[in-house]
């Protein structure tokens, strides 16, 4: 099955977006004569896979496609094309390649294309290595990558960490640029709502871009009605919770990367064990589309049901005589068999993890922490898993939740945990702890916590959650409604005004804005006017809301949003854009300094 998702059912014409990226790539290839070797940044190869297939590249005389490595190039191609992010390490590789070739007396042409744009630092490095003159430098403006029908990614891996720790806000420019580009295709977005430092900043940059380079009114009726921007910082609890949807769990245990997971072949029922295989996961797979957002408990039931009904059909076929059309129906059903097998295999593997007592224990404690009532129990649980030296990622996730819900820990406990952590996991984690402290994720208590107020007002804990027939987004975490999505829910319905008191309790400023199709007219809007337009349907279509998560979003949150838009009385389709797909693990990895 194709790894590139079909985007035909997308509420927005995302195919054109992908087409454009593909065309731009081909143009770059066309501009380079002769056979060429394409060297890609390993981080980009997943993205490339979502845009195009190798066969297409081959048509344009790409001899070979490889990851950039430190070793010199072994190839007889005369042209070398590098496709890289602006990263210092990669520049060093490139210079060493060229220097090696020069020392060997090899003559080649080198092209370096930066994704999405060049930076001064990188060019400086190339200059210093004295290879700048031998290069042709270009840009491949890949700002937005459609991951699925309703999910876009800006592929900014460390946006969150860069803003929080390093004070590097260049990713915000990137986000604004990406949205600006979207507006050129789909029209100016009239309503904007933002919460968080980074989000409001992006809106500022976006407005400036709009003034400098206005989106013409000739694009027609804006296809996207409302833009909601949300900082990850506003809600760090949700990503720290274990995701319980099917897709979320797959991500927690196998790590979904660019719409596929890499698994040991034996899991998928293949004979050759030890070999890795890629399993694509996107909505082109109808069964997956149906079950990805469900709570995993339910998924198992659904799969069982489907299997039984198929078995029943089968016995009917073998025992009774059938008309040709009935046979045809049966055969049609059989076509879905490979998908069935795939998901049964995956679900079986997941169950191995989800039935472990340690996993269930963790879920239990997560709920206790979110509930915010029993400090002692949480404290002792975390203390115990540190002492047992459970994986540090798990420990930190709980600690972050614990610290946020209590607005930090009392100094005595804070120091105690820090010391126990360093003793158990090594002193090199000092930097991790400092980073977390700087980001406010694990810190000393300085003020009283307002988590209980937020929890109550936003109805974050929902007691009787029916995971099979959910009536609230809380089903994705079996009883906890993600704060981030609650915010979006309110923002769509009524804007910030109705919940202003609560919004103020969360980190960062918030803003509401109404924009019009000509420059210098963006006025801050506090009235509810925008809503009247919002509810109107344009050309009988549902209106579209673009929700942007700065700093990443989890699969469970996406599931919750999909659930929202599928609810009756919701006249909106929701498209999600994120700097990166994340989960608690990957977010925290950004904070652990990788050491050589």
């Amino acid at each position, binding site marked *: 099955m194709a790894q590139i998702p079909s985007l035909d059912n997308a509420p927005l014409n995302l195919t054109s977006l992908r087409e454009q990226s593909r065309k731009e790539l081909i143009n770059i290839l066309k501009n380079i004569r002769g056979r060429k070797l394409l060297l890609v940044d390993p981080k980009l190869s997943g993205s490339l896979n979502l845009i195009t297939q190798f066969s297409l590249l081959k048509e344009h005389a790409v001899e070979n496609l490889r990851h950039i490595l430190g070793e010199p190039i072994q190839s007889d191609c005369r042209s070398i094309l590098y496709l890289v992010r602006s990263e210092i390490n990669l520049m060093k590789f490139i210079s060493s390649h060229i220097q090696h070739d020069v020392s060997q007396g090899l003559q080649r042409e080198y092209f370096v294309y930066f994704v999405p744009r060049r930076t001064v630092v990188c060019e400086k490095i190339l200059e210093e290595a004295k290879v700048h003159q031998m290069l042709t430098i270009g840009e491949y403006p890949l700002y937005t990558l459609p991951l699925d029908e309703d999910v876009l990614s800006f592929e900014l891996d460390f946006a969150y960490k860069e803003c929080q720790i390093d004070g590097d806000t260049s990713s915000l420019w990137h986000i604004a640029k990406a949205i600006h580009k979207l507006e050129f295709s789909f029209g100016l977005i009239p309503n904007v709502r933002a919460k968080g430092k980074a989000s409001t900043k992006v809106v500022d940059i976006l407005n400036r871009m709009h003034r400098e380079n206005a989106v013409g009114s000739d694009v027609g009726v804006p296809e996207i009605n409302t833009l909601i921007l949300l900082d990850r910082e506003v809600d760090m609890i949700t990503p720290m919770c274990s995701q319980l949807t099917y897709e979320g769990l797959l991500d927690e245990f196998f790590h979904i990367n660019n719409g596929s997971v890499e698994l040991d072949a034996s899991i998928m029922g293949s004979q050759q064990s030890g070999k890795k295989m890629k399993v694509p996961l996107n909505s082109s797979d109808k069964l997956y589309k149906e079950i990805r957002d469900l709570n995993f408990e339910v998924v198992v039931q659904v799969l069982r049901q489907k299997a039984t009904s198929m078995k029943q059909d089968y016995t009917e076929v073998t025992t009774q005589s059938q008309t040709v059309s009935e046979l045809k129906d049966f055969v049609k059903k059989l076509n879905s068999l490979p998908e069935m097998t795939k998901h049964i295999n995956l679900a079986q593997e997941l169950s191995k993890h989800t039935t472990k007592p340690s996993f269930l224990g963790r879920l239990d404690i997560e709920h206790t922490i979110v509930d915010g009532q029993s400090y002692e129990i949480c404290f002792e649980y975390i203390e115990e898993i540190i002492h047992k030296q459970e994986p540090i990622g798990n420990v930190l996730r709980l600690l972050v939740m614990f610290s946020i819900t209590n607005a930090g820990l009392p100094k005595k406990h804070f120091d105690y945990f820090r010391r126990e952590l*360093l003793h158990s996991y090594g002193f090199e984690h000092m930097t991790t702890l400092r980073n977390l402290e700087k980001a406010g994720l694990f810190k000393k208590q300085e003020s009283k916590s307002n988590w209980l107020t937020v929890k109550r007002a936003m109805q974050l804990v929902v007691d009787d959650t029916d995971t099979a027939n959910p009536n609230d987004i809380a089903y994705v975490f079996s009883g906890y409604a993600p704060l981030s999505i609650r915010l979006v829910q309110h923002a769509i319905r009524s804007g910030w005004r109705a919940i202003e008191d609560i919004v103020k309790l969360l980190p960062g400023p918030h803003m509401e804005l109404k924009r019009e199709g000509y420059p210098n007219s963006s006025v801050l809007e506090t009235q509810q006017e925008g809503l009247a337009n919002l509810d109107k349907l344009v050309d009988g279509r549902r209106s579209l809301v673009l929700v942007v998560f700065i700093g990443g979003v989890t699969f469970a949150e996406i599931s919750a949003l999909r659930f929202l838009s599928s609810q009756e009385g919701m006249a909106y389709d929701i498209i999600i854009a994120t700097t990166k797909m994340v989960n608690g693990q990957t977010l925290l990895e950004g904070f652990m300094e990788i050491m050589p």
Partner: protein
Amino acid sequence: LLWRESWEQGKNPLASKGSPIHGPRIKLVEQAHNLFSETKEHAFESKAAEEHAKLLRVQHELEVSTKRPLFVDSSVSDTIRTCITLGYEQAAAKVRAEFKVPEKRWYWLKLLALAAKGDWDGLEKF
């Protein structure tokens, strides 16, 4: 920022070196310790750096006395566990005392180490 930098400096050579000569590493960490102790807010960091230097020293001694290159670069808990697993009960107790390991952690470590070793008699006794 100065102490932060020195901290990183002290860290990086740490991770990259696996050689048995640990003198320079310990010096660096001690330097970090001194820098941290110059200001009040970094009392915790200073203490951690001090302990780190101490740990490296202890680990170095352990490697020399046991002739097994297993200790350096592992954490305090790991060190204790390795000691128990290898049967150096006294050394383990010494490390425990030196780093004031709380009772709860000590019992977990001992339990896990004995279980890993399959020392059921030892488990029985304690």
